[in-house]
């Protein structure tokens, strides 16, 4: 009896809930999708840098925080919003330049793990630096993004979430165009493919790195705006890097579409698990559920959904 009851709770009751309350289920899925896009935004920064320089940039989360802190800081100083945005972008470009000049340049040809640890060092630095400049209390970020809820066919939607999703989509579109149809984009893809061959045909590696890190900084800024407007600009923003990691391994480190699809899958999976199965185990499972989900995927596809096929030679 106990066992049947348990099986019912785990396997039948949640499914029943989903089928009998389709509108609520749709709402859960949509809110999952929208959160997923926010994850994708962060994961995108990782992918860009990993593709172009082979660096697993743990500091992306800290860059999100740093960019958002700068933006809020400039607005608090009395700059108009558009100027603050421009300034924040400029700061991220300077940061990219400094990172290349003082860190990457000396770490060429080092093992991956050394570069990875260096970016963790960078994470500490950016957290300390950002909070030293602008203080460590929670700052609201208000860019006048509408935040009303409305109904479509009985499903409750939030304007802000749609706005975030829209800007995420636009960003991805712009990046895709940038990568495929511009001279710099082609150079970026060449570097991603093979550093030495790219250098051999005369592509300046250092410039490319600065550009990639600037673009990642810009993506970080967008992510920072979205997350900051949602939950305030604060230290915990840098922790969403940890949320983006399962998205990354699910989608594959080297794939931009992978980051998007991975983000959506993780977002939806997490929301559904939290709402339908979370209460069974005491809730707060979103911290690890994404990882377990990604792990399950990886057991079948070790390179992630869209990652490059791993070929091993002896």
């Amino acid at each position, binding site marked *: 009896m106990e066992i049947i009851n348990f099986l019912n709770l785990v396997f039948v009751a949640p499914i029943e809930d989903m089928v009998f309350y389709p509108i609520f289920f749709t709402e859960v899925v949509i809110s999952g999708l929208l959160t997923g896009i926010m994850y994708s935004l962060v994961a995108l920064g990782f992918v860009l840098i990993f593709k172009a320089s082979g660096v697993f940039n743990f500091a992306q989360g800290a860059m999100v925080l740093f960019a958002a802190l700068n933006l809020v800081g400039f607005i608090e100083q009395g700059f108009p919003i558009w100027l603050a945005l421009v300034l924040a972008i400029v700061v991220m470009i300077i940061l990219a330049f400094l990172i290349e000049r003082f*860190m990457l340049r000396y770490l060429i040809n080092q093992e991956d793990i050394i570069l990875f640890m260096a970016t963790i060092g960078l994470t*500490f630095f950016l957290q300390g630096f950002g909070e030293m400049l602008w203080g460590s209390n929670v700052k609201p970020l208000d860019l006048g993004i509408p935040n009303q809820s409305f109904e479509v066919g009985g499903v409750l939607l939030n304007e802000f979430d749609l706005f975030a999703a829209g800007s995420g989509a636009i960003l991805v579109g712009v990046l895709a165009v940038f990568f495929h149809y511009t001279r710099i984009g082609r150079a970026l893809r060449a570097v991603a493919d093979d550093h030495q061959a790219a250098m051999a045909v005369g592509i300046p590696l250092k410039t490319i790195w600065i550009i990639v890190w600037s673009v990642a900084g810009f993506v970080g800024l967008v992510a920072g705006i979205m997350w900051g407007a949602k939950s305030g600009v604060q230290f915990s923003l840098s922790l969403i890097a940890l949320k983006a990691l399962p998205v990354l391994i699910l989608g594959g480190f080297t794939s931009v579409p992978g980051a998007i699809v991975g983000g959506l899958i993780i977002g939806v999976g997490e929301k559904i698990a939290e709402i339908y199965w979370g209460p069974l185990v005491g809730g707060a499972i979103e911290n690890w559920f994404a*990882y377990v989900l990604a792990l399950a995927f990886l057991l079948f596809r*070790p390179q992630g959904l869209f990652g490059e096929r*791993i070929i091993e030679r002896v």
Partner: protein
Amino acid sequence: MLYRETGQFKISYAADQSVFPISQDRWFVSVVIAVAFFVVPVLASEYLLQAVMIPLLIFSLAAIGLNLLVGYAGQLSLGTGGFMAVGAYMTYKLTTAFPDINIIIVFLLAGLIAAFVGLIFGIPSLRIKGFYLAVATLASQFFLLWMFNKVAWFYNYNSSGTITAPPREMFGVIITGPMASAEIRYLVTLCIVIIFAFIAKNLVRGRLGRSWMAVRDMDIAAEIIGIRPFQTKLIAFAVSSFYCGLSGAMMVFLWLGSAETEAFSINESFNVLFMIIIGGLGSILGSFLGATFIVGLPILLTNAPQMVGLSMPIDMQKHIEIMLFGSLIIFFLIVEPHGLARLWQILKEKLRLWPFPY
């Protein structure tokens, strides 16, 4: 002149295969151990023992454990904190359930449980490699901490959700809990760490260590020469988790006295990883050096402003501390990516030729 193996002839295979084949090394290690046992507890203050020496030793043990996995077997893991938590919580459960069992035995049992947990979370390593594996091991970190937070059984249903070290004695001396003196806890920690460092040192020289290194260097090639990669990797995960679990248990029972899951957060995992990278991957000595660096640096940074007579607001100082910590790590990785153990190696090479380098 001081450090030269000339004239030290080996007359038996046992002597040839000893852990420290050069007598100067043997002397040096003996002196260091003697100082650690007899001089440090006498001279060091309570603060120095509690804030520096005990954490240093405990983190060295964790670093050795992670080094076996990352440095020797080549499996990048970020789940150290989770495995340390398993050791700590299991020690707490076991020692409150069976108060009569000697606490050292409880430590070892908890370590074995941690090893088993590590074995389970090591299973994906057969299919996943590199950073994919690193991120996958984060699953263990988050899942285990969540479990210890949510399931009240693990902390005996107490309201605060913390585990506290109860007083346990050995040979009539209290060695854990608030009553135990810092000297006693230091000595117990030192004994355990020396024994297990020695075991690790031997482990990596033997068949197992060699197969780990073969798998690290290229696992397909290792498979071809007859090493079973799956088993080898799993054993690496188990042994590493045993060490981490043991050090987690010691962290709560011999150092902190009480802890929540917060004490084993992802930051601890990164710290231990820093230790082995800065100390030197694939080096037992490096684990100690790295632990010294990472434990010592924040203490130094906290106390440095007072020493030079600088005063600043406390949060400002905290931020500068984090910044300096981050930039020093980057600086160090740039200057010596092979870690402190490599510097030690270079020093020894130089010493062999000194004072006539030509």
